[in-house]
Each structure stands twice: as structure tokens, then as C-alpha cells.
């Protein structure tokens, strides 16, 4: 059993662009915006960066391929830039790369930056992506809302939940996130919504309506990581450290065997268990202070509460309706507004989640600040319920 990442690497600085329909900004501008804030926060100059990890997913509509877009946009001093792409979980992958580089001793200070420019396609929703030459010959021309909507049909059947009960519960997920996002100046959607509005919205993919789907937006977020001793030497206090970084990837079992029941994320359960073990957490429902999960769709968030062992199996509907994950609940979830209100610039989202945890742990979250959070969890998912990559990361104050 490896010793794990706990308390070996800390965050030196972070930045996050304003998310939204950034008609004003190219991907390069978004990168500069997030990077500038992170560097100022870290209090370092470009020559102190040893390497960078760069996350972007839709290279055809955004930045282009490889590490070059980051190197050129930020005029980095010829350091190594590695592009990572792992569907919607790419942001966390960039962070993982940078953290592991620092933990290994290969780098003292490393940059992780995720960006996505989705609003140059000319249409709403996620851009249509290519999937090789074989898959299109047999696989349905699937779209994300219908992939994730299937969680609802399987969950209802497994737990005997009535369709309108589940519909109301997932509506509450969105109502809660909109209430949170309204307080966040960097969020894309900043209007509270009512349950009635959510329930009355047009259907995108049965049973998901418009408000069950996260926004589509442009954005970038950046993290600069280093070792605790270097951070202290640079004058940093109240350090936020990585407690766990876990990633689990499907191997086809859910997609092809008949053993998975379609109502949960197999990978999330594996990644969560490993992350709690790495972080030394025994009772997540009692110990986790706050969450940023991959709420690409409201129903994803609901079932994820069970996959992260925060709600008992079959108990997420009750917890959600009880307000357990509301801003004033026991474990506030999507306190920044989540994907629901930030939108989902694919490669940036994982880093954006970490940004909120970092601000909250440092007491810098403004109107959204939670009272004394200790441990924050981010859950960043790429793919679809039946085959995906799922990362679960835990951060907290160093030594806690």
C-alpha cells in the first residue's frame, strides 16, 4: 500500500477566471486571467515554475492540441508543458500531474491550468465530439443529457422511487445550486430559481429538463502547487494541503456485463474508498466539511451522494429533500454554484472546484464563506455513467 499524497504537497496560489459566455475572451485570454490571479496569489514569478500541466478537452473548437497553447499564451520560460485530456475530469488530472511532480521531487513548484472555450461553436450545449472510426458504426449518436438521464430510470427502478418524487428531488438539487451561485461573482448563472420553474422547464432528455442540466460556458482555472517547506519559506501560512488524489477508470464492466444496475457510478465508489483511505477518513458523513461534485446533471449529483458514502444507499432523495447538502445543511455541496451555475468549460471544471475549496479553507470565500470548514472534497467525472473516469480529491488545512 503506497504511503499516499497526504500533506506532501500544498497549494501556493490559485486563480479562476469569470465563467460564462465570454464573447469577449479567447481561450488565451481566459488562461491569462486565471494564471495572473494564481501567480499574484502565489507571489512568484514565471521563472520559479518548473513545469506545467495543461488540461483542455475539445481541442478542435478551443485551443488546439498539445502543450503549445499554454506555453505560448502564458509566454512560459520554455518549461515543460504536458497536455492532459481525460474527458470532463481533465482539470483534476492536470492538478494530479503537477502534485505528483512536486511530491516526487522532480519539481519544486508546478502549475496546473485548465481551460475550455465552448462558446465558439455557434450552438448551445456541448460541442459534438468525434469518437474514432469504430464506435460511430454501432454506438448510438449519444448525447450527455440522455446518457446521464438513464441514471434516473435505473435509480427509480432499483429503489422503487416514484418518477415525480425523484423529479422533485433532483429539482431541489438545482434550486440549491442556483441559490449558491447567485452569491458568486465569478459564476455564469447568477439567478435563483424556484422548484416550480425547474419542474416546468422543457424536457431535454427524459426525465431531465433544462434546469437539470448544467450550463455551457467558457472559463479557466489555475493552481500552483509546491512542497510545504517551500511554501513556508515563501512566507505562506494557513496552508491548504492535498489529503487524497484518486482516480478510477472504467474497464468495460459496467458497459458490457449485466452486473451493474445502471443506478450509480462504480468508479466513484472505488475512488471514494481509496481517497478516504489515503486521507485517513473513517466516517465521511461526519468528517467531510463541504463538497464540490460533478453536477453535470442534477441526477448525477443526487446519486453521487451515495457513491461518496455521504448518504446511505437509497437515502440520497431524503437527504437532498431534508436540505442536508444545502448551504446551511450539514455538508454544503456546490457552495460556489457548481457546474450548474458555473457552467462546464470541460478542461477547467476540476480546477474550479478546487479553487472554491481553497478559498473556503482559507476563509476567503466572501458571501459564501462557511464557518470553519476543515476538509473539502472534489469529485470530477468524465464520460458517462456506464463508462467513465472519476476522480475524488480531498484537501484540508495542512496537518489537520
Amino acid at each position: 500500500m503506497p504511503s499516499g499524497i497526504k500533506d506532501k504537497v500544498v497549494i501556493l496560489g490559485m486563480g479562476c477566471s469569470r465563467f460564462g459566455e465570454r464573447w469577449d475572451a479567447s481561450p488565451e485570454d481566459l488562461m491569462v486571467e486565471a494564471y495572473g490571479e494564481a501567480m499574484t496569489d502565489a507571489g512568484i514569478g514565471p521563472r520559479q515554475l518548473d513545469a506545467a500541466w495543461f488540461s483542455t478537452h475539445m481541442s478542435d473548437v478551443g485551443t488546439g492540441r498539445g502543450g503549445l497553447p499554454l506555453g505560448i499564451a502564458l509566454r512560459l520560460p520554455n518549461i515543460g508543458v504536458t497536455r492532459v485530456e481525460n474527458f470532463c475530469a481533465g482539470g483534476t488530472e492536470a492538478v494530479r500531474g503537477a502534485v505528483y511532480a512536486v511530491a516526487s521531487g522532480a519539481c519544486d513548484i508546478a502549475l496546473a491550468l485548465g481551460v475550455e472555450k465552448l462558446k465558439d461553436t455557434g450552438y448551445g450545449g456541448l460541442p459534438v465530439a468525434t469518437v474514432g472510426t469504430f464506435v460511430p458504426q454501432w454506438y448510438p449518436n449519444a448525447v450527455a443529457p440522455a446518457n446521464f438521464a438513464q441514471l434516473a430510470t435505473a435509480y427509480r427502478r432499483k429503489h422503487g422511487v416514484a418518477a415525480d418524487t425523484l423529479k422533485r428531488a433532483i429539482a431541489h438539487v438545482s434550486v440549491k445550486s442556483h441559490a449558491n451561485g447567485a452569491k458568486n461573482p465569478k459564476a455564469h448563472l447568477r439567478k435563483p430559481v424556484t422548484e416550480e420553474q425547474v419542474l416546468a422547464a422543457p424536457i431535454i432528455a427524459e426525465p431531465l429538463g433544462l434546469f437539470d442540466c448544467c450550463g455551457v460556458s467558457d472559463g479557466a482555472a489555475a493552481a500552483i502547487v509546491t512542497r510545504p517547506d517551500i511554501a513556508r519559506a515563501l512566507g505562506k501560512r494557513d496552508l491548504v494541503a492535498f489529503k487524497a488524489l484518486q482516480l478510477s477508470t472504467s474497464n468495460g464492466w459496467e458497459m458490457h456485463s449485466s452486473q451493474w444496475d445502471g443506478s450509480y457510478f462504480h468508479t466513484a465508489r472505488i475512488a471514494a474508498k481509496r481517497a478516504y483511505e489515503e486521507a485517513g477518513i473513517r466516517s465521511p458523513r461526519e468528517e467531510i466539511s463541504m463538497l464540490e461534485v460533478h453536477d453535470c446533471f442534477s441526477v448525477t449529483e443526487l446519486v453521487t451522494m451515495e457513491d461518496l458514502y455521504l448518504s446511505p444507499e437509497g437515502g440520497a432523495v431524503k437527504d437532498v429533500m431534508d436540505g442536508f447538502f444545502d448551504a446551511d445543511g450539514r455538508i454544503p455541496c456546490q457552495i460556489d454554484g457548481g457546474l450548474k451555475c458555473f457552467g462546464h468549460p470541460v478542461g477547467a471544471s476540476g480546477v474550479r472546484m478546487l479553487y472554491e475549496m481553497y478559498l473556503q479553507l482559507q476563509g476567503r470565500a466572501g458571501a459564501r464563506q462557511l464557518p470553519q470548514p476543515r476538509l473539502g472534497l472534489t469529485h470530477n467525472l468524465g464520460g458517462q455513467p456506464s463508462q467513465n473516469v472519476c476522480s475524488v480529491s480531498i484537501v484540508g488545512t495542512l496537518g489537520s
Partner: protein
Amino acid sequence: MLGIVGYGGYIPRLRLSRSAVVQANAWYAPQFASKAKGTRAVANWDEDSITMAVAAARDCLGTDADRQHIRGVYLASCTAPFAERSNAGIVGEALLLDESIDAVDITGSQRAALSAIAIALAKAPAAGSQLVLATDLRHTRAASAQELEFGDGAAALLIGSDRVIAEYLGGGTLSVDFVDHFRGADADVDYAWEERWVRDEGIGKLMPRAIAAALADAGLDAAAVDHFIFPSTIAKLDAQLANTCGIRADAVVDNLAGGVGDTGTAHALLMLAHTLEYATPGQVIVVSQFGSGAQALVFRVTASVAAFRPVKGAATWLARGVEETSYTKFLAFRQQLMLERGMRGEQDKKTALSTLYRHRRSILGFVAGRCAITEDVHFPPSRLSYTPGAPALDTQEPHPLAERQGTVLSWSAEYLSYYPSPPQYYGQVDFDGGGRVLMEFVDVARGDIESGTRVEMVFRIKDVDEKRGFVRYFWKATPVRSTAVGQTE
């Protein structure tokens, strides 16, 4: 004994209301007011002559995936999607027929199916069972008589010597360049000459000669005919022809004009498949068709007829139609009405032919891999199994899925993507005997699909590459529906 050893049919589920068509076009073509009766069969957006032929073949061949006994396949159609690439070859792949047989396209006239039967009859004694498929999906102009008269459909006959259900007695053929209609190589619709000339000078003179020749070859008198099959869009022409030939009026077989329409090359065989469902031993059947000449074949039903049943049969296909009253849907399905697709409809559907070839058994034949050790089923097949903790190497054996049913695990219906008939239904299907595939659901309406719904497989168009003129096919799932004859949905 040589003759028909199996039969099957296929009529698409949608039945377009003729009154809906007539009403929509009344401003322009009021002359069709008297034709506003009944329905015509309409292929779904993802059906074509090939997919309908596969459906009819499966209706005939049954659910046994072992089809090695079929030693030849003939696809008769005047609307096959490929001018070059064997259409019969695609059907052969879909049916998992033996690669060492010949798969032949026969085309060029409405009686191509009868020509195919004649060839199959000649070949079967030495070579073994021959599969004859007839199928047509004919394009027509909006506000034309053909639009109302034609229908889409297919039929299948298995010709052989073992357990013959209708013995071949004789045939008569005339090959004459009588051009009642034609369609140039680049044209999309037929160009037809005056109906009265076709009736009197063409059908009225050529058909009796072919029928007389066939009966003479069979050594039978016209009065012996119990079922007279002659498809025509000209009302009552079948009865007139029977009268001319000396065939009893009660022998004239209903041409399905009321509910289905004339399915072109397929129609005589579809009527024959329908007739064989209720024909009794000893009865004589004349099946005839007109087109670039005339042709007639004579069969006598044997005692074995009761022992054969198609999977569903023409009567069931007839009964399970659903009326479609949207004329614009019909026009859109036939590319006669270009609907706005949005930018999501701009996706390139280019097919990598090398990939298709490498995976053709999976894609066209829907063959999965079954691990010989764990019995886990994998689709698509792979060298390594997914079996948790024990990914075995090279243990998978071919495991056909097309004739297996499954159960819906999860589903959705989405309105986001470009889809020719929204919403697009798809979800996960767990197959009986193992294996799970994310599949499109077709021929469904709201409420037809739920978790737990039983589904069966249909061979359909997956995507059309309009830029390059290529069609790719795959299997889709449709709810298992009652096969009880007479039950309408």
C-alpha cells in the same frame, strides 16, 4: 420435389393515411379526392430496401442463427441503395450466411423477384436451398398518384427440395421492351406512360400469354387455379385478367391496396407469402407480375404447408401497423422536405471502410464474443475479457445476438441532438444469455420503453453519409409486440 420450403414478409409499421396526403395536397391536386381512403405502408426513416429485405428474410428463416444450409441469396429490388456494392452481400452479412455462397442482386423490372425465383428453382436441386428476397422502397413525387398507390415492403421465399410446402409445377416468361414506366440511372422517380395504354396494350395482351404458357408448362387448366396473384395499381385489373385467362373470380388474391399499397418488386412475393399463410394442401397458386414483359409461376400447395410458420408472417405485419397522419413526416423521411437540422446535424458521417471490414461480423451480423471459460458475453468482442479480476486472453467465441431478445435496463429520450424522428430513444439492453449493449430504440412511441421492457432486434440504417452517398447499418432494439393476428395496436 422442388419448390417453396419457407416464406416470410415484412411491412413497415407506419401506415400513412391517404386522406392526410390528399387533404395536404388538395389545393394543388384536387383530382385525388376519390383516393382518400385507407393507408399505405411507409418505411421508417432508418429503413431501406436492404433493411426490409433482412426483416423479411428473418421472418422466413426463423430465429435459428445457424443458416449454413442456405446456399445462395438473390435480392430482387429496383430501389436497392447501392448501385455498386452488392446489396445482397450486405443482406448476407446481416443474416450471417455462409461466405462461400453467391449473393446476387437482381433488378431492372418489376418482375425481378419472379426472375429470381426462376433462377433459384434452377439452381436449388444441385446447390441446395436458395433464398429469394424481394424488396422495394420507391420514391415518388409529392401530389402524384404513385405517392398514394405505392407502399413499402419486402418478402422472402426459401426455395429448395426438403419439406416442400408449395411444389413448383411450371412457369412462363415473356421478355418484351414494353415501357409502361422507366427510371433513368440518375433519376429518383419513375416516368410513366398513359395507364389505359398500359392496361390494354401491355398487361391486357402480354400477361395472358405468360399465364397461359405457365399453365401449359404445369399441365393445368386455368379453372384449376385456386389463388391468382397479380399485383397492379390499376383497380380491378386483376379480376379482368383472371377473367381473360379463364381463372375463377374467387381465386383472385387481395392485392393489399387498401392498407399497404403496391410494394413494387416485392409485391407478388408479399401477396404469395400472405396467401401461403392460409392456403390448404392441393391448392394451385399462380403468381404473376408485369414488367419489361410478363412472367407467371405455378405452384401446388403440399401437406407440409401447415408445418411451416413464419416468425410473424404477413398477416401479423399487416395487423400491427399504426396509422401515421403526418404527411410532412413522410416527406421528410423520403428527403422530399428538407427540415432544419441545426448545427448538430452538420456532423460528418464518413465511414472508415477498413474499420467496417475488420468489424463486419460485429456491425452487420451483430456477433458478440462469449468467453468459453466464464460464459460472459462481450459486445463488441475483444481479445481480453472484462471479467472482474480475471481478464482472460483470447477465450471468446462468436456469439450472435440478433436473434436474441433482451430487457431494457435504462433509457432516455432526448431532444438535443439532430435526429430524423425525434426524440431519439436509446438505452442499455441486457441480452438473454448475457451481454449488454447501448442501443437505439426504434418504432416506439411515448410509453413504449421503460426499464424492464422486453425488446427484440431489427437491422436498420445507422447513419447516412449524404456527402459521399454511403449508408451504414447496425442493429437496433424494438419492443417485443404481440404476434397475434388481428390485434391492432
